[in-house]
């Protein structure tokens, strides 16, 4: 029904002016929405109820629409597997032989690591549970790179949790609802992720720009990155766990360092959402707040005689106390008269390091 078919049929308005006014009003409304939108933040309420409702309506429809394509893909893969079974078998045998070598190396390294951890008393990160979800919608334009996955709040998915594919980090969750979660990809122009260069431990911020290869911003240090360097999540700020594979560094045509994402190596049909909590959330905050520093009035008054002693003598017993558990043990196992001095001299080195290593997971 047209507007002119109702009670307003005799109302004459200059259409061009009326249309211009409608454009201005709608434009102002759009601008207001734009200014109030903060989809990239880590706040759950920033996503908005409207988005959740539309996502919940769209997700099942997209799921149904993509089902025939999935069937076709499975059928095509089946036919390919049938015809290329022999060559695939040869390739897998070679890969299996190579992986066996890696397994042996991994077992040896795991053993060394566990001994080091026991020796140094390092507190490692707790294991992270995860849920698997299927991607039902995939926006890949220059202004928005997001995906809609079919797992949501009912499975423990929360805003800010990292999302991985088989090959590497994909992005993080920016919105959740019942049965759906919106993933902001690393390539989105609003995405900024703290990362590190595996070789040099140099820190950077991975910033998306809508293209396939996000840039490495705020790189610090001299020659911090080279072509082919592995990029991992740094875990800085406690947003992501440390060490998730992101990709490899490449020099872009524009001169910027960029990252070829590991996740791009395979189609991202299924994703794993890590149910990761910021490690500061895991700490017992109440217990931390309850323990207070002793009041200053309890500090004993300085003794006159201690001020006479040189500082080296006063600090010596304390230092001996710290080193004692490590230093005495080798002396007991190795009774040789010349060795103990060397053994007792070495331990202080590792003692200094654990304080740094142990501080890292806390972030």
């Amino acid at each position, binding site marked *: *029904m*047209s*507007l*002119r*078919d109702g009670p307003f*049929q005799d109302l004459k308005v200059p*259409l*061009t002016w*009326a*249309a*211009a006014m*409608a*454009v201005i009003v*709608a*434009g102002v*409304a*759009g*601008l*207001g*929405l*734009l200014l*109030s*939108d903060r*989809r*990239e933040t880590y706040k759950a309420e920033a996503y908005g109820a*409207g*988005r959740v409702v*539309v*996502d919940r309506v*769209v997700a099942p*429809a*997209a799921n149904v*629409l*993509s089902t025939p*394509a999935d069937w076709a*893909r499975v059928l095509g893969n089946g036919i390919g597997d049938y015809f290329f079974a022999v060559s695939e078998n040869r390739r897998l045998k070679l890969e299996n032989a190579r992986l066996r070598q890696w397994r042996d190396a991994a077992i040896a390294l795991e053993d060394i690591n566990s001994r080091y951890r026991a020796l140094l008393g390092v507190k490692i990160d707790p294991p992270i549970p995860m849920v698997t979800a299927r*991607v039902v*919608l*995939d*926006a890949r*334009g*220059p*202004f*928005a*790179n*997001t*995906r*809609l996955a079919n797992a949501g709040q009912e499975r423990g998915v929360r805003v800010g949790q990292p999302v991985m594919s088989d090959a590497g980090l994909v992005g993080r969750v*920016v919105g959740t609802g019942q049965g759906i979660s*919106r993933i*902001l990809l690393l390539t*989105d*122009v*609003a995405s900024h992720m703290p990362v590190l260069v595996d070789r040099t431990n140099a820190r950077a911020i991975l*910033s998306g*720009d*809508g*293209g396939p290869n996000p840039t490495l911003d705020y790189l610090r240090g001299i020659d911090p990155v080279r072509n082919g360097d592995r990029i991992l999540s740094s875990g800085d700020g406690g947003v992501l766990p440390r060490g998730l594979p992101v990709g490899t560094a490449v020099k872009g045509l524009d001169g910027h360092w960029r990252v070829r994402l590991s996740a791009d190596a395979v*189609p*991202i049909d299924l994703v794993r959402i890590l149910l990761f909590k910021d490690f500061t959330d895991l700490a017992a905050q109440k217990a931390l707040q309850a323990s207070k520093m002793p009041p200053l009035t309890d500090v004993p008054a300085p003794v006159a005689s201690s001020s006479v002693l040189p500082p080296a003598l006063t600090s010596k017993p304390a230092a001996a106390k710290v080193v004692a558990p490590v230093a005495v043990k080798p002396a007991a196992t190795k009774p040789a008269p010349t060795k103990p001095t060397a053994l007792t001299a070495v331990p202080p080195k590792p003692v200094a390091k654990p304080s740094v290593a142990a501080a890292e997971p806390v972030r």
Partner: protein
Amino acid sequence: MKFQTSRQTAARSMDAWNWLAVPTLTCLMLTLLFALPIRIFGLLPPEPVFLMVPAFVWAVIRPSILPPIVLMVSGLLIDILWGAPLGLWGFSLLFGYAGVLASRSFASGQGQSMNWVWYAITCLIVELTAYLVTLIDLQAAPSIVGAFWQWAVTAALYPFAHQLIERFEDADVRFK
């Protein structure tokens, strides 16, 4: 083609369902289809702004109050579908619509090739608006190559716009 008329005048009113709702719903459906994670021969399909077609056509056919509102609402739906900032596409499409509306007295009545150029320039205005809004809003520059490809595939949709113009341009003779 049949249009509902209530008064026997030279200016027949057009049925809102035919010239507003059907193109909008078609564009939203196509946007949803192209956003599915389907690879064809290992490649993902492009992501054109389908709503650019009705935005151009509505302004060319005749000025009206309803199209800006429909554009704003459908732009919001696209923002939600793509996970873009709310208002980005509604605002950008309105910018393009306003541009066509302002220039329709100069450009209407031209041949198909000139209309295609006009449409491509409008697409460019829309892409540039979205680019600048993103740049100001997020303090980060989106990929120019990505924006160019989106503009190119959107500009290639002109034949559909031409069909719609052919279908509706005689509907209201006052705007010929």
